[in-house]
Structures are given as structure tokens and as C-alpha cells.
């Protein structure tokens, strides 16, 4: 294989130098080692991409139906509705965001949605695709053309236009958790608050939150009390700051989040949040750990009392 490539590279007269396409592999990329969620996602994407090619590797025209929620505030007397778009998925990128871009570019420029990084790190393109809350840039298209894909905004949120929702309440709840480092004394060496690798490991699974609001808008407890209950995302970040070894206000943070039944204790362990997180995080376990920390005292304290 390598010799074949070398021959092709050395021969300047060769017309077509085809390097092996990354889409023809089996999804086992060394860079994804240790990230099971990403490996599963890449395998699914390749599988769905394969079904839209025939034996010669040529793309056949495959039209899939997409039903997208539409509502325009400039036309106030029309009620919201699901508009059908038929898109040729063989000439389109693999993710749902690519479909939305294609529709906006070719069919209907008035389709409104948020998007930024197209790689699942900014959290802008979060929406409800086929009943699950995910980010559109990480969700591969379901290549089954017999069923339409239904795209709606995140559930139980006020809609500004089409797929754009009002997230100010969500951001204010995140702010209420005070997601910054709070210390009483300046750092020991005068420059940085140092942290051991073991302490840093405690933050794994907490710091990766992209604030896409998928978990919060999938929580029934949040649907019924959005003003009171901070939601799984804010509580996950609260736990992230509680478990940060550099933070000196641990007790106060824990007390603020567990003082009445409106914050942590609104959680009923429904676990929709963990099921829907596009980054594979576990807000439910973080909330459970905070409840445990509140009800049981730390082991060190018990020894001191004796």
C-alpha cells in the first residue's frame, strides 16, 4: 500500500493521485482512543454514509424528507407548522447541520437557526431531532428514506423564530451558580493557584459542558418549574466548582445549592439529562453526589469530632 502511494507521488505525470479517503475506513481511528461515545458516533456516521453509495462508489440521488418547525413573528397570524423539505442527502454532508445549511442555501433562505463551530464545541445548534435533544452538527442523518426526520426547537422553550429559542433564563441560571474561582487568599507562589494532576482528574466529565441546554430542556422537572429549578446544566457546573480543589468557598457553594427544596432537591432523578447529553456527560450523577455530600458529612470531620 505504501509502495503504491510512493510510486504515485513520485510520478508527476500521474493524473489522479487518490489518497485513501477517510470515509472508507471502519471508524477505528487512533485519535478517538478512549472516547467511546466518539467512536460509536464515527461508526454510525460511516455506516449511514455507506448506504447512500452504490457498488461503483458513485452517489445515487437519495431524497430524504425533513419536517422542520416553522414560525415567523413577522407573520403573526400564521400558527406554527412543520414544513417538509426534500433534500438529496448524497450531495450533502453527513450531519443534520449540513442539511439545514443546504436547505437555507438552496431552497428557503428564511429558515432561521443558530450555528457556529460545526464541530460540537460551541453548543449553538442544539435542537430536537427525531425526538432527542442534540447538537445538529454532531447528529448524523438517518439514511432511512422511508421515514421523515422531524426537527423542532428544544422543547418547552419560548420560540423567537423557527428553530431559534429564548435562552436568557438558562444563562441567568448558569450565572446564579457563580461559575468562577472564588478564593480568600492570593496564590501561594504569588502567581498561580496550583493543582495536582489527581485534583485535576476530579474535574473530568464536568468541565466539558458546552452549555448547549439539551439536558436542561429535556428535564420534566425543569419544564414544570423553569423559574425556580436551575436545571441539570447549571447544577453540573455548580458541582464542577464545588469539586475544584482551588476553590475556597466549597462549603458556601454547597450550602447555597442545597439550602431549600427549590434548587438541587427539585431533581427527581428522572435521568433524561444523561440520556440526551451530546457530549456524553452525566449531570444526574453529579446532582446525586451533591445530595450525598449534603446529607453525609465528610469523613475527615468525623475523625476530628472523636
Amino acid at each position, binding site marked *: 500500500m505504501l509502495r503504491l502511494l510512493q510510486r504515485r507521488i513520485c510520478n508527476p505525470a500521474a493524473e489522479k493521485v487518490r489518497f485513501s479517503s477517510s470515509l472508507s475506513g471502519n471508524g477505528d481511528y487512533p485519535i478517538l482512543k478512549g472516547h467511546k461515545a466518539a467512536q460509536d458516533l464515527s461508526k454510525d456516521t460511516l455506516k449511514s454514509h455507506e448506504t447512500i453509495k452504490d457498488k461503483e462508489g458513485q452517489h445515487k440521488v437519495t431524497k430524504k424528507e425533513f419536517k422542520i418547525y416553522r414560525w415567523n413573528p413577522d407573520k*403573526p*397570524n400564521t400558527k406554527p407548522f412543520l414544513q417538509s423539505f426534500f433534500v438529496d442527502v448524497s450531495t450533502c454532508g453527513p450531519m443534520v447541520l449540513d442539511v439545514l445549511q443546504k436547505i437555507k442555501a438552496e431552497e428557503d433562505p428564511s429558515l432561521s437557526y443558530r450555528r457556529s463551530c460545526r464541530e460540537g464545541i460551541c453548543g449553538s445548534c442544539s435542537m430536537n431531532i427525531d425526538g432527542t435533544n442534540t447538537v445538529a452538527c454532531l447528529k448524523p442523518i438517518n439514511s432511512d428514506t422511508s421515514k421523515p426526520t422531524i426537527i423542532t426547537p428544544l422543547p418547552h422553550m*419560548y420560540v423567537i423564530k423557527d428553530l431559534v429559542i429564548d435562552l436568557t433564563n438558562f444563562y441567568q441560571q448558569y450565572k446564579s451558580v457563580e461559575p468562577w474561582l472564588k478564593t480568600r487568599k492570593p496564590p501561594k507562589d504569588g502567581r498561580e493557584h496550583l493543582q495536582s494532576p489527581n485534583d485535576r482528574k476530579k474535574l473530568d466529565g464536568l468541565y466539558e459542558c458546552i452549555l448547549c441546554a439539551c439536558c436542561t430542556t429535556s428535564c420534566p422537572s425543569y419544564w414544570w418549574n423553569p423559574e425556580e429549578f436551575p436545571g441539570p446544566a447549571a447544577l453540573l457546573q455548580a458541582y464542577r466548582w464545588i469539586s475544584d480543589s482551588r476553590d475556597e468557598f466549597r462549603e458556601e457553594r454547597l450550602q447555597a445549592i442545597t439550602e431549600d427544596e427549590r434548587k438541587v432537591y427539585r431533581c427527581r432523578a428522572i435521568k433524561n439529562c444523561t440520556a440526551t447529553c451530546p457530549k456524553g456527560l452525566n449531570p444526574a450523577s453529579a446532582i446525586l453526589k451533591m445530595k450525598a455530600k449534603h446529607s453525609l458529612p465528610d469523613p475527615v470531620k468525623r475523625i476530628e469530632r472523636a
Partner: protein
Amino acid sequence: MGATKLSGMQKQVLSLYRGFLRAARSKPTTEDRKRIETIVSTEFRKNSKEVDRKNFQYIEYLLRLGHKQLDQLKSPDMVSISSVKIN
């Protein structure tokens, strides 16, 4: 005077209108104050005639938009508002 009881949504609209007028009173010059009052009152009166009373979704959308604009107007740095008519 209105003999019928006002619905909750009507009360919200009226309190938003009151909020705008109060914010207008806190502005420095009378000219700015009058401009804000005329713009806000024409907007509210136009919407009250054009928007159907039962179109809750649109009324709630306008209320949320109005509250955001009021929060912006309340800040002491904001001096006045202006509106442009496009045909």
C-alpha cells in the same frame, strides 16, 4: 372606565406600558422624554388594534421583546430611542 375585569395578559401589557413611561421620566431632557413616550404609545396603540386578542403566542412574543427593550432603556447610559418606518 373599564367595567369588565382585565385579564392577566392585559395586566401584563399595561404594566409594561407603565414601565416604559416610568423609564422615560428618568431621562435627562424633556425632548428625549417626549420622543420615547410618543414612540412607545404609537407602538402599543398600533398593536392593540392590529393584533387579534386571542393570538396569545404573538402577544407573549411581543411582551418578551418589550421587556428586553425596557431593560435596555432603564440603564442610565441610554438616552433615547428612535424608530424608522420602512414601507
